[in-house]
């Protein structure tokens, strides 16, 4: 079985640009969460979606948005990129997001120059 897949694996963007990151959860999993991991730190929660509804939002500015599609895949969008947005963006999938194990993808390494 395929695990959580994220695309692209690496991305370089210029300040002010927009970026879209994609995630496909494990088959059968209906919940997707997004995390930002800055070098040397633990992942920080950005969003969680379950059955296409936003269930939770972390302490991130409105430049960050996400959505989940009927096939449970998800997109994370970041507008007006700042240098500080450079990080590893992780997608985690779980059956329901509640009291179930979360499995992470390999992440998308975003570099803003």
């Amino acid at each position, binding site marked *: 079985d395929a695990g959580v897949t994220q695309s692209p694996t690496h991305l370089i963007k210029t300040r002010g640009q927009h970026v879209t990151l994609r995630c496909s959860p494990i088959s059968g999993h209906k919940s997707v969460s997004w995390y930002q991991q800055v070098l*040397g730190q*633990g*992942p920080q*929660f950005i969003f969680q979606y379950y059955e296409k509804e936003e*269930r*939770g939002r972390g302490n991130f500015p409105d430049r960050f948005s996400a959505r989940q599609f009927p096939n449970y895949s998800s997109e994370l969008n970041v507008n007006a990129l700042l240098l500080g947005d450079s990080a590893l963006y992780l997608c985690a999938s779980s059956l329901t997001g509640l009291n179930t194990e979360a499995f992470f993808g390999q*992440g998308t390494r975003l570099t803003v120059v």
Partner: protein
Amino acid sequence: QQQVKQSPQSLIVQKGGISIINCAYENTAFDYFPWYQQFPGKGPALLIAIRPDVSEKKEGRFTISFNKSAKQFSLHIMDSQPGDSATYFCAAQNSGGSNYKLTFGKGTLLTVNP
């Protein structure tokens, strides 16, 4: 406010030794405590997890000890191997909250020398 404090920041252990990583939490509503292992360039991989109704859980060489009254939990890696060299993160979740986010510690870089 850092809700999950992890220590040490880095740890060097000889092959065959015991690696111990500690975490402390503040939110008494946390009721799920997983540990993740992360290799460079990879996403975190779930290693072992515990819920507060038990004080210890063992899976192979990995053991979680949980102290509810002290609001602390720890990961013990027995017979540490060079292949265990990675960054380890503890995390906590409140399943009764408005969202089900995992709150992570800052990580421990473990190096196991051959």
